[in-house]
């Protein structure tokens, strides 16, 4: 056997998890009290895991870099969470959710993990409702659903446009209950800077107190990493400013394999950038594609007229508009998966049809939806011959109820009223499917070190479907890790407290301090952001929505150069022993500068197009699918897990072959 044993249990797909749970080793309640677990990250994954592990009786120490667990980046998720409840009676089932997720991921995820995810999804909704999460309801008082891209059923639960916020507040409230009981020791404003290994097992972490600058040692019997994705490697993304890869990268350097780093999701509907000062991009939730129609003008002269302000989008008649998604993908229309929608927008803008000054924007139009809802409402209200204005008014009311906060957000940023003129949108980096490799137990290649949520690679293959990240985070934290970690910890009941005054802790702490001092003493010439922006530009231009071998090779050497320049001339003001946001950024960007290179190396290796990874060399040349991405199952149906060996360029590839026993591998068609 190779080192990559996925530990997927035997037996039929649909019985694996149940049978496995029945046979798993348990820790008795008295012994749990003497076992410590560190959870780094308090987003949906870390927050739900910390709360559940504490409920079970373990002593949990949780960490986050914000001033409260409730502020983790999960809070920003807008659209919703999937679950195979089939409340709408539209043919949904565990198998269908599983199938959609595997297909949506372009057949690059592990079948058994995805099935388990679909299986526990319904429990998530039950749990959240019991916690008091105020999901949207219909007039009968029952839960409402909406549709997301890449599927033909309505299985997405939502709380207005603030689903992530409400789910996170649910997990946070469960954490608060355990903090009050003393079962969770919460460390806010702390950043993990390394993991400590003793005899090959993860036994603790080194963390910096971001208020005092103090470097602290924390020990435990197992360490869980739930620190989110690495989208900020692009500098501009929809992630929070502080979202980072540091914890994941540090454990990678200590032996955890990094899987599929090149699988990134570029989300089709984000607010386009407006200038060089831009610090982040804002997502307009995918749920908008339920009702919004995407288009650009058919004629180049209209494009120019719009850019020069001679025409408004609303001046163009239906015939003058190219609803290019409806044209190219009649079956799914505006609800094709994200990667497909993003590439289609890029294709139109590259061809010169972009509708703003930078040429990088397409329209997302709600006019038809407003009319449709308006007419519906007029009927419901029994209005005969309602005026056009009345219909618009009624329609806008419905749209406001559904997406009000998103429309408001758009108006604040762009200074245009999206009820009256179509939104302008463009793709932006949003989510990273790649991440730390984990087995079926969610354990990394380091014993006792677990990784959950967006930080791991597990469930989304090469492309994630909308509303599935929240599902995965909560599935991992509430329902999967609490079982699988028990199996490992059942062997730790006699270990006793892990001391922190050992050579392993000494060494890890010294390395962390040395690095911090090197930054502070560097006296360079450029700010951290200067380098981050440079890296971001290489990533976007050469490792973005479409990739080719020549550019990827260039990216590898350019990133290396930026990294060398960074260490030579980065300037970090202030001291190490105080609150110092520039120092925090420096450490994060240093890690992005290594991860970025591995990313490009992985993308170069994968000479096929799959999901979010589009290689220009690998497209369908003829037939109905001409120009669409071409997967190569014969050679690339594997997970690429990289082992750290010094420089990113020295990383060694390990393959986990993907087997599909319950699903037939097919070309993903949304035509």
């Amino acid at each position: 056997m190779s080192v990559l044993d996925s530990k997927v249990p035997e037996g039929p797909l649909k019985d694996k998890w149940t049978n496995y749970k029945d046979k798993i080793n348990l820790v008795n309640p008295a012994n749990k009290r003497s076992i410590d677990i560190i959870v780094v990250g308090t987003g949906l994954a870390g927050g739900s895991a910390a709360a559940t592990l504490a409920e079970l009786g373990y002593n949990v120490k949780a960490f986050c870099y914000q001033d409260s667990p409730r502020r983790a980046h999960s809070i920003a998720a807008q659209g919703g969470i999937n679950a195979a409840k089939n409340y709408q009676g539209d043919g949904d089932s565990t198998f269908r959710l599983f199938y959609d997720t595997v297909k949506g991921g372009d057949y690059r995820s592990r079948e058994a993990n995805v099935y388990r995810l679909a299986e526990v999804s319904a429990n998530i909704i039950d749990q959240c409702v019991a916690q008091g999460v105020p999901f949207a309801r219909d007039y009968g008082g029952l839960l409402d659903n909406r549709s997301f891209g890449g599927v033909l059923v309505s299985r997405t639960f939502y709380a207005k446009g603030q689903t992530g916020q409400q789910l996170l507040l649910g997990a946070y409230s469960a954490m608060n209950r355990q903090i009050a009981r003393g079962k969770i020791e919460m460390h806010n404003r702390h950043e993990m800077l390394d993991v400590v290994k003793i005899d090959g097992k993860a036994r603790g972490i080194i963390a910096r107190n971001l208020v005092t600058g103090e470097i602290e040692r924390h020990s435990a019997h197992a360490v869980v990493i739930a620190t989110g994705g690495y989208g900020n490697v692009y500098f501009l993304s929809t992630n929070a400013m502080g979202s980072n890869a540091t914890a994941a990268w540090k454990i990678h350097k200590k032996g955890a394999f990094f899987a599929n780093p090149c699988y990134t999701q570029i989300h089709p509907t984000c607010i386009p950038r407006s200038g060089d000062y831009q610090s982040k991009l804002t997502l307009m939730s995918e749920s908008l594609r339920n009702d919004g129609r995407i288009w650009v003008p058919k004629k180049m002269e209209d494009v120019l007229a719009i850019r020069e302000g001679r025409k408004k989008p609303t001046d163009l008649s239906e015939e003058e508009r190219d609803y290019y998604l409806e044209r190219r993908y009649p079956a799914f229309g505006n609800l094709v998966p994200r990667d497909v929608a993003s590439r289609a927008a890029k294709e139109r803008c590259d061809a010169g049809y972009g509708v703003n000054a930078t040429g990088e924007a397409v329209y997302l139009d709600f006019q038809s939806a407003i009319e449709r809802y308006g007419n519906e409402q007029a009927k419901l209200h029994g209005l005969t011959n309602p005026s056009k204005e009345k219909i618009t008014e009624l329609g806008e009311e419905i749209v406001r109820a559904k997406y009000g906060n998103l429309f408001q957000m758009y108006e604040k940023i762009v200074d245009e009223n999206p009820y009256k003129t179509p939104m302008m949108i463009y793709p932006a980096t949003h989510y990273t499917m790649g991440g730390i490799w984990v087995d079926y137990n969610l354990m990394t290649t380091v014993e006792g070190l677990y990784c959950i949520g967006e930080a791991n690679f597990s469930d989304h293959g090469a492309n994630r479907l909308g509303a599935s990240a929240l599902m995965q985070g909560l599935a991992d934290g509430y329902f999967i890790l609490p079982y699988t970690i028990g199996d490992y910890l059942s062997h730790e009941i006699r270990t006793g407290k892990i001391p922190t005054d050992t050579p392993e802790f000494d060494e890890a702490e010294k390395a962390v301090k040395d690095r911090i001092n090197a930054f502070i003493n560097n006296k360079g010439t450029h700010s951290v952001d200067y380098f981050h922006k440079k890296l971001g530009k290489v990533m976007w231009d050469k490792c973005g929505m479409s990739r080719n071998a020549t550019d990827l090779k260039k990216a590898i050497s350019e990133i290396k150069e930026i990294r060398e320049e960074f260490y030579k001339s980065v300037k970090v003001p202030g001291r190490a022993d105080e609150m110092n946001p520039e120092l925090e950024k420096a450490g994060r960007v240093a890690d992005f500068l290594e991860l970025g290179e591995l990313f490009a190396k992985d993308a170069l290796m994968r000479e096929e197009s799959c999901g979010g990874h589009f290689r220009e060399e690998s497209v369908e040349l003829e037939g109905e699918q001409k120009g669409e991405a071409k997967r190569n199952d014969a050679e690339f149906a594997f997970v690429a897990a990289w082992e750290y060996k010094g420089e990113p360029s020295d990383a060694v590839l390990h393959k986990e072959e993907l087997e599909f026993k319950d699903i037939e591998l097919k070309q993903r068609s949304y035509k």
Partner: protein
Amino acid sequence: MNLTLKIWRQNGSQDKGRMVDYQVSDISKDMSFLEMMDVLNEQIINKGEEPVAFDHDCREGICGMCSMHINGEAHGPDKGITTCQLHMRSFKDGDTITIEPFRAKAFPVIKDLVVDRSSFERIQQAGGYISVNTSGNTQDANAIPIDKHAADKAMDAATCIGCGACVASCKNASAMLFVGAKVSQYALLPQGQVEAVDRVKNMVAQMDLEGFGNCTNTGACEVECPKGISLENIARLNREYFKANVKG
């Protein structure tokens, strides 16, 4: 546009702190307020000085991290938004802008514009939850239908982002709007009923312990709240508290 910024600088909680003047130029009206702060900090770093520390993360008005008092108003002049959602088009060339941290006894300054809001954490820990374990055997989510209006109201209360602007804009530094929002969310849902008495008592007790002031119904909090949390929630908190004390 060109602007003069008067910014509160305080090097750590022990420092007395002072206002310092800065000039920034070529600020675009499409920049967000925090992007303007980024430009300022880049300028400060290039001069070899220490940049202004401020809290921020999501930069889209949802995490509740950003917390600036701008020209005497929590989150600045525009209504219904957080500092990170404020754009420079709300100012004009030549303006002088005063930037201070949220001020309240229960929110001590950590550094510059960064304050310590852990008092909010402790209030939530005192009872801001429903005691239900994660088991996988919880009853079906649709087993208890909830009136849409109650659910929508609960959602409105639940949108509080815990930023603290209500406290910072209240002359008594009262936290009633924040606590009212949390108590209301649970009071409006059937799931929250079982623990209603203890919840409201414990949360209010913790609020008093943290040194937040009394509510004298000035309504300043509602005006400055970026999420439009309404005073109705304070009224509901008072009712719940009264009920709880009657029940004992």
